[in-house]
């Protein structure tokens, strides 16, 4: 089969993002460790290079992988190479999902929205000193 221009672009973009993320990975791992002796200023108690080895690099690794997954997922859609997504008529504990959403799921979400708003605003009141004085 023949690849279209859009397909070629897709692969080129994949290579580009891979190169960028790989470079990030390389710098965080090898360059930082190489200069480890010089990067020993204190960082929340840790010497910086120790912190990078124990935590910083790990966080960057997670971010690299998650970013790649999200980016590629979007790229799949844009270039029409995404897998068929499941439609929303699957069953959910026996209900057709859309029926359940109408009957129960949406109601749960409404409750969550209202409760979340109430809690969030209550905290905001406190933080900005606009809460009412209430005896408890």
């Amino acid at each position, binding site marked *: 089969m023949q690849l279209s221009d859009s*397909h070629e672009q897709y692969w080129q973009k994949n*290579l580009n993002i891979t190169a960028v993320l790989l470079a990030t990975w390389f710098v965080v791992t090898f360059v930082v460790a190489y200069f480890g002796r010089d990067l020993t200023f204190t960082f929340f*108690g840790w*010497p910086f290079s120790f912190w990078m080895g*124990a935590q910083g690099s790990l966080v960057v*690794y*997670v971010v690299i*992988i998650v970013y*790649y997954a999200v980016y590629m997922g979007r790229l799949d859609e844009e270039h029409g190479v995404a*897998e068929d997504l499941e439609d929303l008529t699957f069953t959910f504990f026996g209900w057709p999902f859309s029926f359940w959403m109408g009957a129960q799921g949406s109601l749960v979400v409404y409750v969550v929205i209202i409760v979340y708003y109430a809690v969030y605003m209550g905290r905001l009141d406190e933080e900005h000193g606009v809460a009412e004085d209430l005896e408890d």
Partner: protein
Amino acid sequence: MAGLAGETSGGGAFDAKSTAAFKAGLNRIYGFYTGGFIAFVAILAILEQMGMSRGTIGIVFLLATVALYAGIGIMSRTNDAAEYYVAGRRVPAIYNGMATGADWMSAASFIGMAGTLYLQGYGGLAFIMGWTGGYCLVALFLAPFLRKFGQFTIPDFLGARYEGNLPRFIGILIAIICSFVYVVAQIYGVGLITTRLSGLAFEIGIFVGLGGILVCSFLGGMRAVTWTQVAQYIILIIAYLIPVVWLSVKQTSVPVPQLVYGYQLEKVTEKEKALREDPKEKEVIGVFKAQADALGEKLKDVKAALEADRSAATKRVEDLKTANAPADQIAAAEKALAAVPKDEAAAKDTWTKAKAAAEARARPLAGLPAHAQVFAGDPKGDQKAQDTFDTSRRNFLALVFCLMVGTAALPHILMRYYTTPSVREARESVGWSLFFIFLLYFTAPALAVLVKYEIFHVLVGTPFDQLPAWVGSWAKVDPALLSVTDVNKDGILQLQEMRIGGDIIVLATPEIGGLPYVISGLVAAGGLAAALSTADGLLLTIANALSHDLYYKMIDPNATTSRRVAISKALLLVVAVLAAWTAWHVQVSKLADILFLVSAAFSFAAAGFFPALVLGIFWKRATKWGAVLGMLAGFGTTAYYMIMNHPWMRTVFSVDSPVSLWGGILPISAGVFGVPVGFAVIILVSLLTPAPGRDVQELVEHVRYPSLKGDTLNTEAT
């Protein structure tokens, strides 16, 4: 447990409609499971307060967890090929992430790593970075493409991409070598922990654990292994976090050790400086130095020293006998006489070893490097210090490289990404895998620092008669793990007077933190879960390489599905028994260096698989002969470097030539040479051989795109 036990019709990919319901079912099951497990631990804690003995708690933990894993195995039993090899390809990303986490974290991660960090400080971080950063390579280069390819094993991909059974066969060999070495170490770990937990003999311990592994993987293959690994992940992460959080609260009153241990590290560094200058510590060092010097004198004239020793010991026995001394004194003197080396060669050997031991113990801080110091040596010091610094830095980077590339090439990990429902979920699943691994790896360095703080600030300086109970009980279990002797006879413990093995750090943390015994049992059960889950995945990889790749693809392509699965199960049994036998043999003979073998598996996988897999996807021009020779060259270079330079390998292969390290790189990181050689040979040979045909080009295009319109190729195996 309908979600786990439900058999799909037709055995192919799971019906997309009920994916969400399936996932919701899983959430519910594992939610109840986690709650149930916590309740179980709570009940045991109450029973302990009511007087249940430690031995009983250990046995209950052992039996309950192994029975649980076996139960999941029985519920997920299957004879369907897609279920057996890839869990029906319907494991949601997050659960595949948890299963990969358990598959990945072995006894070495759970028990060994915090110990290594304790003993090596910054140097140990090579393992933290190496064993997490490798997942970036998995995500960017392998997981989504292998998922699109969608067969059962890694040799499958090599066979299809490089047109033929020869690349597949080499893939089988490398997969088996790496996985077998690794699984022996896991079963060895299982034996140690069951022994510790239950007091059973080592051999029985191995077989109890083996029973747990087998019931699970034997009945249900990848499907049972996946759902058991999720259960095991939950146990191991709870077991790892509880004692560390407790220790953190005790020391800093903040329950998030990962956030605050930087400040503890500052205090440890302060204390290190103080201990180096402490006169009492120096006194102990003096005692060891004197011992080493005395042995050095003896070694100058072995013959005379041996005669002097023997006559002195003989004379003492005679003196005691003539003086009619008590029988036990005479017996002790006779024992001392018997302990005098038999001949000159023996004397030289014994004294050289003793001198080395005394010298090792005379090093400041009991041989521990300053915890926060980056690399040994000094770049601004004299020539020797500069060389030490360069070699230390080079070895750190090389080890990180080998562990990372090895992570992205170990077949039991890569094969997990065949089990997700789609390419998209395979990508996400790598993220979840690393997230779940990250939870433990983020904590291990904190654990090491907190334990060091406890030992430096609380234990050191304690009078010998007031030492906490755990010191005595661990010293009794195994003096190699912990031993304390009042060398300078001042009645107070100095750091220099204590010898500590890495493996004790995690296992003893609950006791160091003053937690009840039930938490110690929990930690041991977590270690057992870590070892069992990894062993499960590895055994499955080996059995599948033999049954699917060797038997079905190469010997009898007409075999029916049920026959393939049956053969796979039979092989699993054989391999498991063989691995257990080897582990037992290793334990009895103390032949192999387990830790070295495990790390060697990473270098082998890295050099053997990584170049061929990555170029197979990213370079259409890579050819069959390029891959064949490249895999052999990469693997061969690594093996050659290890055999020539590693002490244990040298004795196995009876190498006599002098050790010659390339650029001072230790044999553990041999992959740092093998990987570039592998890449270079594949590229060179590929350019010299004719380009692969149209069908290979189409296969490569097929795996590069999650879905391609007009693509008639379907590689998904059912």
